[in-house]
């Protein structure tokens, strides 16, 4: 029982960051109809910015996190304006190829810039775990969980409560009508991509100190983000949040009770099973697959 509780808590920490990844991807996917295979690369970027800020510049952890979000969002914005905007009327397959190209280019640029050796990010938290009744958690992980929750809440507020969020929801529902009502589609797309990329970078900056940072870390992050989106349904913010938590917990349970070598297989199996049995996602009310 205690073991189970511990696995659930660890899963929640992982799941929070998966949810951040998933929210970014589901917005880009749902709103822009772009399959962003480079999503994981923004996660890697965030982790490296965090590493550079903490290990090289020696700044505060919060500043490092903020820097990661800003750099991720800026590069995402650039990516949208330079590559996706000219292709807005092309098919989904065309933009998918472009994003695959961006993925390969970004990953190898990181490999060239930082080298293939995994780096560990020094963090200011004590390593002794906090014991909370039957479970224990490292202070860093608790911090990751709290910040992930805060970022998820902030995203939710942005989408539901602001004028910008309303414009984003309108664009998601019907792009042409939204444009007729005076929503600047180009700006919304750029903001969405920058926002999603910033969230992915935040996830990387949060998980970077927990694990190691290396150039190909984004591959698995991309796939996990896709598992979350598929679990939660396309363009579904609450679905992505729940899906992220579910995936994190499922992975921890799989690693704990089956075999740690197959931890990452959980996400793959989820993708295949959900697409097979319930292709509109676990929480969607309507069929959304084109």
């Amino acid at each position, binding site marked *: 029982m205690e073991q189970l509780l511990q696995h659930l808590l660890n899963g929640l920490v992982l799941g929070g960051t998966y949810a951040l990844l998933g929210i970014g991807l589901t917005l880009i996917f749902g709103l822009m109809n772009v399959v962003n295979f480079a999503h994981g690369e923004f996660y890697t970027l965030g982790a490296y910015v965090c590493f550079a800020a903490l290990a090289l510049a020696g700044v505060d952890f919060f500043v490092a996190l903020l820097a990661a979000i800003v750099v991720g969002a800026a590069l995402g914005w650039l990516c949208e304006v330079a590559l996706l905007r000219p292709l807005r009327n092309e098919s989904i397959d065309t933009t998918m*190829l*472009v994003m695959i190209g961006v993925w390969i*280019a970004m990953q190898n640029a990181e*490999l060239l810039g930082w080298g293939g050796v995994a780096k560990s990010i020094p963090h200011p938290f004590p390593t002794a775990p906090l014991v909370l009744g039957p479970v224990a958690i490292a202070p860093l992980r608790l911090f990751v969980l709290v910040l992930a929750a805060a970022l998820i809440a902030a995203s939710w507020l942005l989408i539901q409560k602001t004028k910008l969020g309303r414009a984003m929801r309108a664009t998601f529902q019907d792009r042409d009508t939204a444009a007729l009502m005076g929503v600047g589609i180009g700006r919304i797309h750029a903001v969405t991509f920058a926002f999603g990329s910033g969230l992915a970078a935040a996830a990387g900056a949060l998980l970077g100190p927990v694990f190691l940072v290396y150039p190909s870390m984004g591959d698995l992050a991309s*796939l996990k983000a896709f598992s979350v989106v598929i679990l939660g349904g396309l363009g579904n913010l609450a679905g992505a949040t729940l899906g992220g938590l579910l995936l994190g917990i499922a992975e921890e349970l799989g690693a704990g009770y089956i075999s740690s070598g197959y931890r990452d297989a959980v996400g793959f199996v989820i993708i295949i099973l959900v697409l097979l049995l319930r292709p509109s996602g676990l929480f969607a009310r309507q069929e959304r697959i084109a």
Partner: protein
Amino acid sequence: MTRAAGFVVAAAALTLPFWLQSPYHVHVAIMAGIFAVLAMSLNLLLGYTGQLSLGHAAFFGIGAYTSALLTLKLEWSFWLALAVAVGLAGVAGFFIGRLALKLRGAYFVLVTISFAGVISLVSLNWIELTNGPLGLPGVPAPELGPWSLRTKTAYYYLVLAAVALSYALCRRLVRSRIGRALVALRENEALAESIGVDVTHYLVLVTVVSAAMAGLGGSLYAHYTRFVSPEVFLFTYTVTMVIMVVAGGKGTLAGPLVGAVLFTVLPEALRAAASWQWQMLAYGVLLVALVFFLPRGIVPRLAAALADRR
């Protein structure tokens, strides 16, 4: 015109080992041949049905592992192992084809990626069978009756035969009723279905053929490098195949061949000038550039240029 060009290409391919001076050049030719089989296999799916498989390295790896394991552990002959490798990759293709029955576009891509991910993890973790990350060294060279195909020249002709066979198969397939059904599926699926094309049936069929061809490439690769490790599942292989098909011209018969030769010879020629990472970085940039500037690929572009001059 095309017939004469085809004849010249065939004659050049048949006499190639006599023109090439060093074994290294023959090695590059062999790798180009193996990648030509893989690129043609991917082109069947991407070029003719419009479905992108990003898990093609899985079929390649299944072929490589099956062939290596059967010849190493059960001491089967190469030819029997090759046949089983092709068959097993085809079965995996059937499995994916059935799974992807109703999935298109991005969802098909995700299922193929996930499948490759699972298979790759199995090859890393099932150590009793696959020897884990250490891989399987000492895969025997094939023999043909009393002759060993150990030399590079002999292996070149084996690979050339496989390329010719795959090309003939693709040609036969796409120029038949099946090929027309596939193009109909790519262009307008709803319309194709409405006039009675059993879309899913053809999609499964072509996935099986495509996977079997990738398995053929895998088996040839295993017995050529004589070593198989989980690296055969590397995403790099899939990326290379995609670049070859997109650059050469998807949905054309000659495109994957041109792409395979170009993207095996170029990286080797540039090896001294640029490291492997720089090349992969260039691949990424190139893929983006191709979409913007040469969306249909080299072969259709050349064909259009030739037609204009006439």
